C-alpha cells in the first residue's frame, strides 16, 4: 500500500535521489537519509519552528511536509547557508549579538530570518518579532535574536 517511491530533491545545491516511503517527513529525510542534522526536530507538532527550512525559497516547517511533496523542489537548510568558511550575515549576526543560548532553536530561527529579510530587507523590530513568531525560543527571551537579525539586516544593506 505504501511502497517506496523515487524522489529527487535539490538540497543545498546538490541533487539527492532516494526511494522513500510516502509517510516519511521531510525533516526525517534530511536528518536520517542525508545526515543533515542541523535541522532539528523540536515539538513535532507544527508549532515550534525548529525544523524550518527553505522550500523553493520560502520558509516551511519540515515536520509538516512529506518528503514526496518536495520531489522536484529545492530545499535549503542551515548547512547550505555559509559560503565556504564565510558565515552568512545571519549566522554572523547570531554570533556577534549572542543570539542563542542552548542553540536548539537556532537553525530554524536563522532560516525563518532568511525568509524574512528576503521579503523585507529593512524590517522594524515589530516586523522582526512577527516574522519569527513561528519559531519558539525557550532561553533567550528573544531580545538578542532580534538584535542578531537587525545586525544581519544592516550588514546585508551595506554589501
Amino acid at each position: 500500500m505504501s511502497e517506496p517511491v523515487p524522489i529527487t530533491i535539490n538540497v543545498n545545491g546538490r541533487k539527492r535521489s532516494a526511494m522513500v516511503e510516502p509517510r516519511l517527513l521531510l525533516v526525517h529525510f534530511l536528518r536520517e537519509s542525508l545526515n543533515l542534522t542541523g535541522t532539528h526536530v523540536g515539538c513535532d507538532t507544527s508549532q515550534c519552528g525548529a525544523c524550518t527550512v527553505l522550500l523553493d525559497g520560502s520558509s516551511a516547517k519540515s515536520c509538516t511536509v512529506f518528503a514526496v511533496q518536495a520531489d522536484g523542489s529545492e530545499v535549503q537548510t542551515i548547512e547550505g547557508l555559509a559560503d565556504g568558511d564565510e558565515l552568512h550575515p545571519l549566522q554572523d549576526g547570531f554570533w556577534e549579538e549572542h543570539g542563542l543560548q542552548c542553540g536548539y532553536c537556532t537553525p530554524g530561527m536563522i532560516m525563518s530570518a532568511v525568509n524574512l529579510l528576503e521579503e523585507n530587507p529593512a524590517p522594524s523590530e515589530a516586523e522582526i518579532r512577527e516574522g519569527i513568531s513561528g519559531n519558539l525560543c525557550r532561553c533567550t527571551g528573544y531580545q538578542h535574536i532580534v538584535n542578531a537579525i537587525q545586525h544581519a539586516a544592516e550588514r546585508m544593506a551595506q554589501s
Partner: protein
Amino acid sequence: MIPTAFEYRRAGSVAEALSLLQEGGPEAKLLAGGHSLIPMMKQRLAEPGLLIDIGGLDELRGIQEDGGEIAIGAAMTHAEIAASDLLRAQAPIVAETAANIGDAQVRNRGTIGGSLAHADPGADLPAVMVALDATIALLGPNGERKVQAEDFFQDILTVDLAEDEIVTGVCFQACRSAAYAKLEQRASKFALVGVAAALSLDGGTCSSARVAVTGASSHAQRLSGVEGALAGASLPDGAASAASGAGDALDFVNEDLHGSEEYRRAMTAVFARRAIEAAAGRS
C-alpha cells in the same frame, strides 16, 4: 510522530485528481499545503489510505478580477493572498486576514481551499467569506457546483462538500468597506472570536451589512441581528449599539481553557463593534 502508511499520488490535473478521488473512495484525501491534514495524520486523528496531491496544480492557482468579481484559486497560499496587490486594492479584508493567519511558515504552505474545506471553528477566512457573500466553487464527477459560503459551513469541521468533490476556488464581489477583527489565541493565532463585517455605505449611513463570526461557535455564521440593527444606522457612532447583542444571539458557543462561553459571548459583541468601525472607516 509518524502517520499511518498511505499511498501518495501527485495529480497532474484537476480531472486526474477527481478520478483518483473516485477510485480511492472514502480512503482518499486531498493534500495541498497539508497544514491542517498532516498534523492530524501525525496524531492519527486522520488515517487516509490515499493522498492525492493537488498543491501544485496551475488550474487551482491565480487571483483574478473580472467585472467587479474577484476569484481566488483554491491552491493559493495565505502568503500569496496577503501579498496580492489586487486584493489589497479591491478587497483589503481578504489580504489583511490572510496576513494574520498563523505564522510565516504556515502562511507559506497553507491554502485558502484547505482552510475552507477543513473548517476549523477558529479559522479566520470562513467568517470573511460569509461576510463577503462568497461563492465556493466545487467540482465533482457530475460537474461544477456552487455553494454560498453561509451554506457551505455547516458544523464543526463539517462543510457541504462530498467525498468525491474538490474545492476549486472562491469568488466574491470586490468590496473595500469591509474589515475583520479578532481576539486571537496568542500562540496559534486561531480566533477565539473573530468577526468580519462588510458594509454598504451611503455617506455615514449604513444601507445594508453582512456580518459573520468565527471562533465563537461551531462554525462560521452570520450575525443576522447585528446586520438588521446596522440597516439605517449612522456609523461609526451606531456601531456599539448595533453590535451589543451579537454574542447573546448565538445558539451555541465554544468553551475551552482559552475562554469561557460567557467570555466569548461578551467578546463577540466587542469584536463585532471593532470590525464594523474599521469597515466604516474605510469608506
